């Protein structure tokens, strides 16, 4: 235990240590990992959960996942701390994470970045409060509004006509929304977007703060901003109050593990209470140790890691643009406002000039070339490139894209371009979700108010959210996306032939 207290002290004295070497020497520690190693050596006799008892009670699972994995799938206990009320190794791990991210406080999250997004919204909004946000947010954001009953004030994102993608938030539009809703309690930005587009985070934060509003950032696709060099500004540096940083995306931890970061003006004790409303009381040590180890890795080696990723992606972009018709975009899009910056580690590629929808290229890559990419939408694909990739695999992707163009190129006549349809909000997401509803066939639902989500997954940005009017344009979009092979999710009817709508008066 003395070691753990030492770790915590290391994190706490950060304020006095401006020296980079001292900071890095603290980051070599991984208190949860160390506590688990110590725990293993104690050889405790387990008369507690989980019932698989270090894997001995489930041979098939142990065979599949490996004994090492099962021996640390354990319950909270004195020497391993408790995620709901951390006082030793988890506390030390959170302090080290906060230091690494430049945050006042960091929370280990084990219910996905979704839980981090919900916790930050639930921490600042209650029923009837207004929150200013772009509509092209992840469903977890609107889910949080269903839970707490806050009222969304949507800012329509700018659209890039050539690419058909939604961009960042324009500063002037945020200002307009703030002036029109001076009673709003918070502004939320998704930064960067899935495609790598960044808003002017610092200016938007200053604007929000000048009007006494909290600044929330869904930074699910921007964990690497904290560790790489010459990347867009991260939320904590920009002065934001909250960030949901999806460590399992660019950070390398296990799926479902994430960080919620808080700035200096946030009451972290209240945030902990909000997190504990919905968080499991059996936090997985597989997830927790993966956060701890990945944080250490990024703090120590992040610069080199993301430098390498950037080089790989730059190479791929150059080669893909050389093939012809594909457009792998980057910083040339920057316009000083709705595209304030671009995340060069994202390999986003527009496919419309090949005459194929992004989702069609996505399916060809998987079915014909055994290459799985992150997602394809109407006009774009995104290949997720990380520290785990090699030039060898990048060559396969480039080679396959070149072949797809040679073998499948079509005229682009009839290609739908728009990825974004301006929603018509009739009532709050909570009202929409909990009101009396009825089920209608897709075509007959036009003119009604939707009671559920409809989205392509990934990227998981709702086409329709509860409380929004169903228009002809939206139904056509849904049919087109289904026809092109998008994986549609959200509605009760898994086939999306029917929609739940509000029962009229």
């Amino acid at each position, binding site marked *: 235990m003395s070691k753990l207290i030492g770790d915590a002290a290391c994190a706490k004295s950060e304020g006095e240590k401006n020296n980079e070497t001292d900071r890095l020497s603290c980051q070599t520690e991984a208190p949860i990992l160390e506590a688990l190693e110590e725990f293993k050596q104690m050889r405790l006799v387990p008369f507690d959960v989980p019932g698989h008892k270090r894997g001995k009670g489930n041979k098939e699972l142990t065979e599949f996942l490996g004994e090492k994995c099962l021996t640390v799938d354990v319950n909270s206990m004195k020497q391993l701390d408790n995620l709901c009320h951390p006082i030793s190794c988890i506390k030390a791990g959170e302090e080290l994470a906060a230091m690494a991210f430049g945050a006042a406080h960091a929370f280990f999250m084990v219910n996905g970045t979704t839980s981090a997004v919900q916790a930050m919204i639930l921490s600042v909004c209650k029923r009837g409060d207004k929150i200013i946000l772009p509509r092209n947010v992840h469903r977890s954001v609107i889910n949080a509004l269903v839970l707490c009953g806050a009222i969304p004030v949507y800012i329509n994102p700018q659209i890039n006509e050539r690419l058909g993608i939604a961009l960042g938030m324009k500063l002037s539009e945020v200002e307009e929304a703030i002036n029109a809703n001076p009673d709003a309690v918070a502004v939320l930005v998704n930064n960067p977007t899935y495609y790598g587009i960044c808003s002017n985070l610092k200016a938007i934060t200053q604007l929000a703060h000048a009007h006494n509003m909290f600044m929330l950032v869904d930074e699910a696709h921007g964990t690497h901003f904290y560790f790489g060099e010459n990347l867009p500004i991260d939320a904590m540096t920009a002065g934001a109050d909250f960030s949901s940083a999806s460590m399992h995306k660019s950070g390398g931890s296990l799926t479902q593990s994430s960080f919620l970061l808080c700035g200096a003006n946030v009451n972290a004790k209240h945030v902990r209470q909000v997190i504990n409303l919905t968080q499991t009381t059996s936090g997985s040590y597989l997830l927790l140790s993966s956060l701890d180890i990945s944080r250490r890795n990024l703090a120590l080696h992040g610069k080199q890691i993301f430098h390498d990723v950037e080089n790989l992606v730059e190479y791929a972009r150059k080669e893909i643009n050389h093939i012809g018709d594909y457009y792998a975009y980057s910083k040339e899009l920057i316009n000083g406002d709705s595209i304030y910056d671009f995340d060069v580690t994202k390999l986003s590629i527009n496919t419309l000039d090949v005459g194929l929808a992004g989702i069609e290229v996505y399916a060809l890559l998987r079915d014909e070339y055994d290459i799985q990419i992150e997602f394809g939408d109407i006009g774009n694909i995104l290949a997720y490139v990380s520290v785990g990739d090699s030039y060898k695999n990048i060559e396969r992707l480039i*080679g*396959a894209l070149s072949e797809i163009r*040679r073998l499948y190129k079509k005229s682009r006549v009839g290609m739908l371009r728009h990825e974004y349809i301006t929603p018509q909000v009739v009532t709050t997401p909570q009202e929409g979700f909990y009101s009396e509803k009825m089920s209608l066939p897709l075509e007959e639902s036009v003119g009604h108010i939707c009671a559920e989500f409809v989205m392509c997954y990934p990227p998981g940005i709702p086409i329709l959210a509860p409380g929004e009017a169903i228009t002809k344009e939206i139904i056509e979009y849904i049919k087109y996306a289904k026809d092109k092979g998008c994986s549609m999710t959200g509605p009760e009817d898994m086939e999306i032939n029917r929609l739940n709508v509000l029962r009229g008066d």
Partner: protein
Amino acid sequence: MELWFSEKHTETVKLSIKVDKQLVSLQSDFQRIDIFDSQEFGRFLTLDGYMMLTEKDEFIYHEMITHVPMAVHPNARRVLVIGAGDGGVIRELTRYKNVEHIDLVEIDEMVVKICKEYLPQTACCFDDPRVHPYYEDGLKFVRKHENEYDLIIVDSTDPFGPGEGLFTKEFYGNCYKALKEDGIMVNQHESPFYTSDAIAMKRAHKRIVESFAISRVYQAHIPTYPSGHWLFGFASKKYHPIHDLNASRWNALGLKTSYYNTNLHKGAFYLPNYVQEMLHDVE
């Protein structure tokens, strides 16, 4: 003292060769390279512990991967060789006077360096003025060429290491594009015998069939490769491997070979039933 090189052919089968001396053991950027001397097989080269060639039986592989397409194509002048850092394919190709230009693309320059020093039996002809070596990824090289080659020879390692990209549909498709309208591609095609080799073999065949109008498989007997029963792929835009074989023209060249002859050429395409069935399954 006894020193043995062993290679696992499956999880439960291995081939061992008694070694006199280990001459080289190093790690390149891509793989581990070892060279040994042995009494039975002479000098031999392994990559990541897998047998690549021995002085005793390399002639079988190199003659079969080179002379079969050369006896079919009426005038192969521009040839692309991918892999083949040991130089064996180059040695056979440079025997043809009508070959004007050979591009050799090997990802690992270290293999060529080591072979030049330790395996002069195969790495004898890199100085031929027609040979142009490139040290880069084969998939990348071939992607940038269109309608350029009469023949592409893919002399790859197994599909589990640096050679993985050379067993993919995108690679075969890019080769198709790099070939002229009557071009031929020949590739190292793994073995039908042990299960994991057979899976790789079927997968490669399926992907070649999807890319080329004519896709046939032929066999040879290579003692130091797993099971000894080895296959090659013959993929072509126009020429049939048997109907378009011009035996008298090839025999008139007067090339002396130890394994290949024009009768065996035809026979090599007649495959055992179980192999035919495997190929048929994926066609």
